[in-house]
C-alpha cells in the first residue's frame, strides 16, 4: 500500500515536470505579448501626453530665433516658416490623424519617427541610434555593476546582521540610498573632478581625441565613464544592498536554513546554496523594477557630465517641445527597459524552479 502510494506520487511528479515545461513556454509567449502591448501603450501615452504639455514647438523655434537674431522677422516670413515646419513635422493635421500617421510610419516605414528639431534636418531615429550607445553603456553597466556589488554586499551584511560593521554599513547605505543622484554626481564632479583632480568630470572623452580604436582613446573613454557610472552605482547600489540585506535576513529565518545548519554544512555552503540562492530570486525581480525607476537618474547624470546620451537629447528636445525626438527617446528608453525586464523575467525560471510551474 505504501509502495503504491509512492509510485503514484512519483508518476504525478513526472507529469508535473512535463506540464511545467509547457507552462514555461506559455509563460514566455504571454510575457512577450505583454511586452509588445506595453511598448504600444507607452508610445501612445507619450504621444498624447507630450502634446498636452503647454508650449508649441513652432513658437519656441521662432522665439529662440528672434532672440538669436535680435530682430523680429516680419509676420509674413514667420507664417511661412511655421507653415513649412508644421507640414514637415506632420503637425498640420488633426491629432488623431497625426497619431495614426505616426504609428504607420513607425511600423511600416522602417522605424521612421520623423525629423528632429534638435538637430534638424537629422532624422530622429538616427539621432537616437547615435545617442543610445552612450546611455545604454553608462546605464546598463552601472546598474549591473551596482546590482552585482549591491547584491554581494547586501548578502554579506545580511548574513552578518549582528556585527557592528554590518550595522554601520546599513546606516551608510540608507543615507546613500536617499541621496538624490544629482547630488552624488555634483559631489563627485566638484571633489573628485576639480578639487582633487583625480578623474575627468565632464564630456564623453578628452576633447583632443577622435573616436578610433587606439588605447589612448579607449582609456580616455573609460576614465571619463568612471564618475558618471560611479554616481549611478553609489545610489542604486545602496538600494540593492539594502534590498538584498532585507531578503537575506528573511531567508535566514526560513526552516530550510535551520535544517541546512543542522546538517553540518559549512557556513559558506549554507550562505551560498541556501541563503543567497533563495534571496537572489526576488533580488533579480528587483533588478527589473529598478531598471525602469533609475533610467531618469541616468538622464540627469548625462546632462551633468555632458555625455551625448538620450538624457541630454531629451532635455534638449523638451526645451524645444520637439515631439518627434521626445517620443523617440521615450520609445527607445521603454524599449530598453522592457527588454531588460523581459530578459530578467524570462531568466527567473532558470533561477527559481517553482516559477516554472506557478507562472
Amino acid at each position: 500500500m505504501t509502495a503504491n502510494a509512492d509510485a503514484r506520487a512519483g508518476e504525478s511528479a513526472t507529469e508535473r515536470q512535463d506540464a511545467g515545461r509547457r507552462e514555461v513556454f506559455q509563460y514566455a509567449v504571454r510575457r512577450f505579448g505583454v511586452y509588445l502591448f506595453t511598448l504600444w501603450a507607452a508610445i501612445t501615452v507619450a504621444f498624447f501626453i507630450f502634446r498636452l504639455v503647454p508650449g508649441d514647438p513652432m513658437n519656441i523655434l521662432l522665439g529662440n530665433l528672434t532672440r538669436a537674431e535680435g530682430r523680429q522677422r516680419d509676420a509674413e516670413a514667420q507664417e511661412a516658416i511655421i507653415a513649412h515646419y508644421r507640414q514637415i513635422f506632420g503637425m498640420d493635421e488633426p491629432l488623431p490623424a497625426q497619431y495614426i500617421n505616426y504609428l504607420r510610419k513607425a511600423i511600416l516605414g522602417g522605424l521612421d519617427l520623423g525629423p528632429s528639431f534638435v538637430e534638424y534636418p537629422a532624422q530622429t531615429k538616427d539621432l537616437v541610434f547615435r545617442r543610445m550607445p552612450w546611455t545604454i553603456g553608462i546605464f546598463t553597466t552601472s546598474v549591473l555593476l551596482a546590482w552585482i556589488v549591491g547584491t554581494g554586499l547586501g548578502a554579506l551584511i545580511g548574513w552578518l546582521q549582528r556585527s557592528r560593521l554590518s550595522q554601520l554599513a546599513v546606516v551608510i547605505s540608507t543615507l546613500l540610498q536617499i541621496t538624490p543622484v544629482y547630488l552624488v554626481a555634483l559631489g563627485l564632479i566638484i571633489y573628485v573632478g576639480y578639487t582633487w583632480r583625480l578623474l575627468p568630470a565632464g564630456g564623453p572623452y578628452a576633447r583632443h581625441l577622435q573616436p578610433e580604436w587606439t588605447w589612448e582613446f579607449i582609456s580616455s573613454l573609460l576614465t571619463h565613464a568612471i564618475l558618471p557610472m560611479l554616481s549611478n552605482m553609489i545610489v542604486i547600489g545602496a538600494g540593492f544592498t539594502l534590498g538584498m540585506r532585507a531578503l537575506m535576513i528573511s531567508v535566514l529565518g526560513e526552516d530550510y536554513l535551520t535544517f541546512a545548519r543542522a546538517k553540518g554544512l559549512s557556513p559558506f555552503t549554507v550562505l551560498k546554496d541556501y541563503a543567497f540562492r533563495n534571496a537572489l530570486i526576488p533580488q533579480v525581480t528587483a533588478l527589473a523594477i529598478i531598471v525602469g525607476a533609475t533610467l531618469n537618474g541616468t538622464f540627469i547624470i548625462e546632462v551633468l557630465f555632458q555625455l551625448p546620451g538620450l538624457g541630454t537629447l531629451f532635455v534638449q528636445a523638451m526645451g524645444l517641445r520637439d515631439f518627434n525626438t521626445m517620443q523617440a527617446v521615450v520609445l527607445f528608453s521603454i524599449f530598453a527597459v522592457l527588454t531588460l525586464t523581459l530578459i530578467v523575467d524570462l531568466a527567473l525560471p532558470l533561477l527559481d524552479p517553482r516559477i516554472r510551474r506557478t507562472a
Partner: protein
Amino acid sequence: MAALLEIRGLSAGLQGRRSVTQVVSNVDLDVQSGEILGVVGESGCGKSTLATAIMRLLTPPQVLQSGTMTMNLKDGSAYELLRLSPRALRELRWRHLSYIPQGSMNSLNPVLRVGRQMTDTLIQHGLSQAEAHERSVAALQLVNLEPRLLESYPHELSGGMRQRVIIAAAVSMRPALIVADELTTALDVVTQRQILQELTNIRDELGATIILITHDMGVVAQIADRVAVMYAGKIAELGAVNGIFEAPLHPYSQGLIGSIPRESGQRIVGLPGEAPSPWNYPTGCRFHPRCPKVFDPCSEYEPGLRTQGSGRWAACHLYDAEVVSDA
C-alpha cells in the same frame, strides 16, 4: 554502560536587551542507546527549545544558559556537545547527530534538487560523489521512496514525500541519535501512521536512538519506548510508555493522558486553564494553579524530579514522602 546522551542541568531561554527568561529550566535527562524517547507537552512547554538546544541550533534571542550535554558513542568516544568548536560540531552533526525539524514542509531548500540537498552534506562529511549518491538512494529506500525523486525539486513532492525525504536525509549517515521535532504534525492520519512505522523500522535496522518531540500523546503511545512529560520548561514525569499510560503519577500527566481521543471519540477529561508563560512562572510547583490535587506545599516549594522506582521519575509533592507527611 553510560547513556547515549546525558543532559545535566540544561537551561535555555530568551535573552532580550533588558530581560532574560528561562524556557527550559534545569533539565536532567538520560537518553539510552537504541530507545525511542518521546518528549511530550503542551505547546510552549519548552520541548522544542530542548530539541533545538540539543542540536545546538539556538539562535538569538534564544540562548543556552547553563548545563552540560555529553554524548557517549559506542566506540567509546565521548563528546561534550556544548563545548565543541563550530568545526567539530559540524563534523559531529549528521554523522552522529541528526535532526528532523519542526515544519519539515519548509525544511527543504526550494531552489535545489532533492538529490543535491541530500548529497551536499554527505560530500562535506568526506564521502565521494558516488558514495553520497549511493547512500542517498539507500536512505530513500528506507522510507519507501524511489531513487528518481533525487531529481525532483521540493515543490514537486507531496507533504508526506517531503517529510520522508527529510527523514531519509537525516538517516543517510546512520547517526547514533536523531532528534525529531513534531515529525507528523502537518500530515494526514494515514501518512502519519506510515511514517511512524518507517521511523520504527529505521530504529530497528540502523540501531539509531530517537528523541521524538511531540504534543501528540497518541504518537508517543504508538512508537516510543519511554516518555518524558514536560511542563513549563521542566520534566514533570519520566518513565516507560506503558507504565505512564497505564498509571500516570503526575497530575499533569494524568490530565494529558486523559485528553487522548479514545476510540469512542470522547475526551474524558481536559486540563483546565492555560500553561504559564515563561515570563511569568508561578512560584513553587509550576503546575499548581491548574492542579486538581493541589495542597499547601505546592505553592511554596518546587518539587524535584525523584525516582519512583522501576525507572519512573516524577516531580510532584504527592510522591514526596517527607512533604506529604509534613502536611
